[in-house]
């Protein structure tokens, strides 16, 4: 971890001052720190974060928040009353997270308290120390096809505040797991902000389904920063359905570290009203013979906005890379808009990549076909919209979240 790219967040841009300040900050999730955090959030609010228009594509990456000219690092030195001899262990919050496993769960999963000293990256530690709810899960090799099921059920974000859930998952070689992130809800009617920080390590030959569905609660800001590292031959499937909320920002970073690692992503967004969803996705092909396959479908009503800022980087020597990234948007609202910025940065020779983005209204030929069979214009439109979404929903594994995803498209 100490060498190699920073986990979770790319912190190259971070000001050296921040690191210094941070090193002075001995992280412990102690109530004593609460005023510091409050001050930090106060500072963030002063900076106008989160707002819909702020730095459209990098919002979920905190680096720019700190590096901006003139903004002092918001850390205060440790409060004088903070006991210096306390264990830097961060607490597990069992209320915020629940875990379910089939059969004899005890054998399948160890839960451990993460020790602050195990972390070397200051930004990561910063994120964790600000987490309200925190969990570290290890799924050991199970030998057979046993599936460990980890369910993250975030507590409601308190009114007018942010709630951060930090989850680290380590999946041992050849183990299988499904990680479900249940929808977050706002507590009360006014603004609140829910942040998920997720870091996953997949051992050689391990498999993980990462499943999340978030319908749009009004006035909820949802951000997430998800980073996955995949060892040789591991398989990651990401299934997500997003309703946007007031503002959603998602940062996803996948590192294909070992040869033959594969990831595929099926993502559905159904946005209404003034909802905004920004996704910033980076896939790194570090090793040969890996594949990444990303499909995004966005259904935009009213004045909603969605963007996918997706980059695929293929390192020198990562030959035999296969990579697809396709973004399709149905523009249904008068003032809706979509943006897609598929980018390819290729430094290897033997690479197969297919990238593209199409955004447009319902095809006239499709609509006419359905009308010519007697469907009314409303029925036809709905059938086409549902069809467009259904392929993404079908890709979900059976379960609660599939149902949530399936009910996103209503008349």
């Amino acid at each position, binding site marked *: 971890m100490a060498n190699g790219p920073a986990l979770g967040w790319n912190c190259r841009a971070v000001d050296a001052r921040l690191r210094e300040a941070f090193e002075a900050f001995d992280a412990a999730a102690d109530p004593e720190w609460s005023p510091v955090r409050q001050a930090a959030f106060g500072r963030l609010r002063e900076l106008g974060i989160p707002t819909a228009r702020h730095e459209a594509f990098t919002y979920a990456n905190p680096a720019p928040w700190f590096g901006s000219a003139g903004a002092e690092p918001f850390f205060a030195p440790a409060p004088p009353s903070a006991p210096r001899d306390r264990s830097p262990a961060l607490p597990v919050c069992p209320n915020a997270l629940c875990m379910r496993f089939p059969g004899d769960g005890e054998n399948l999963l160890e839960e451990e308290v993460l020790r602050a000293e195990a972390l070397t990256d200051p930004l990561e530690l910063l994120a964790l120390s600000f987490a309200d709810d925190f969990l570290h899960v290890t799924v050991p090799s199970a030998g057979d096809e046993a599936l460990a099921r980890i369910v993250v059920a975030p507590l409601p974000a308190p009114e007018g505040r942010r709630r951060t859930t930090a989850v680290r998952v380590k999946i041992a070689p050849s183990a299988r797991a499904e990680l479900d992130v249940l929808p977050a809800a706002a507590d009360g009617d006014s603004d609140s902000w829910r942040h998920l920080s997720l870091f996953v390590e997949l051992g050689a030959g391990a498999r993980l389904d990462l499943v999340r569905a978030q319908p749009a609660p009004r006035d909820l800001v949802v951000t997430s920063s998800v980073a996955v590292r995949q060892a040789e031959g591991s398989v990651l499937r990401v299934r997500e359905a997003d309703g946007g909320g007031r503002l959603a920002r998602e940062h996803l970073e996948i590192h294909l570290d070992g040869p033959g690692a594969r990831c595929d992503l099926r993502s559905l967004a159904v946005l209404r009203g003034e909802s905004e969803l920004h996704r910033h996705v980076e896939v790194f092909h570090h090793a040969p013979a890996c594949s990444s396959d990303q499909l995004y479908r966005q259904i935009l009503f009213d004045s909603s906005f969605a963007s996918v800022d997706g980059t695929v980087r293929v390192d020198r020597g990562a030959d035999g890379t296969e990579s697809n990234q396709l973004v399709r948007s149905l523009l249904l609202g008068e003032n809706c808009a979509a943006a897609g910025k598929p980018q390819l940065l290729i430094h290897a020779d033997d690479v197969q990549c297919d990238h593209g983005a199409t955004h447009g209204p319902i*095809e*006239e*030929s*499709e609509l*006419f*076909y*359905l*009308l*010519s*069979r*007697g*469907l*009314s*214009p409303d*029925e036809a439109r709905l*059938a*086409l919209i*549902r*069809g*467009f*979404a*259904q*392929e993404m929903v*079908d890709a979900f594994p059976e379960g609660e979240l599939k149902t949530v995803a399936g009910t996103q498209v209503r008349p």
Partner: protein
Amino acid sequence: MSAQNSGAMLKIDDLHATLVSDGTEILKGLSLEIGRGEVHAIMGPNGSGKSTLSKVLAGHPAYAVSGGTIGFDGRRIEELGPTERARAGLFLSFQDPIEVPGLGNLDFLRLALDSRREAEGRSPVSDAEFAELVDGAMSLLKMDDRYRTRDLNSGFSGGEKKRNEIFQMAVLKPKLAILDEPDSGLDIDALRVVAEGINSVRSPERSILLITHYQRLLSEVKPDAIHVLAHGRIVKSGGPELALELERSGYDWIEGA
């Protein structure tokens, strides 16, 4: 002078149609009458306007009727939308049916059937009745069970799409079926199956307008009349023997083609 009294299923009179996009006229004074229970075939060179005619009849919004009339089953329909025309019993089998991944083939068919029934004041089809209709049509068209679970034309070969169009027709039992080259891309066996499907809906109450390039289909589905469409109008009409003549000599000998 309503079509009502003529007893015709379809009565097209001096029809002019233009592209909405740039005003190009494609149908230039086309007249055609199909009686109840009759099957008429339309042949004609590529680009003569055959598919345009089929889409104009079904109410495609890319075309505007700039003159003439279309009478269907005793009713003027130029002003109606495609939904209303379909609900009145008009069906178009497309030359290039579109694919709709995510929309179940049978789910869609059921929606279509129910909207038609609703227009006729009938209740939605029951599960049992629908299953019976589907089973009947599927065995008639020798379709395998995969059609039940697949999405509408999604990933279908050209031939499978054509068969699926005829399957829909067999279930919907329209008063007037307009079939735009249902035989293109079919091998001999598939052609025979499709022909059987078409013949199965023939009845004294139903009519068919069959667009084709080939005599082969017409020897299986015997038409009552054949018309040659060229440059946006009917330039020649005749009996079944006209198809053989066209197969032998092409279109060049026909005046106006």
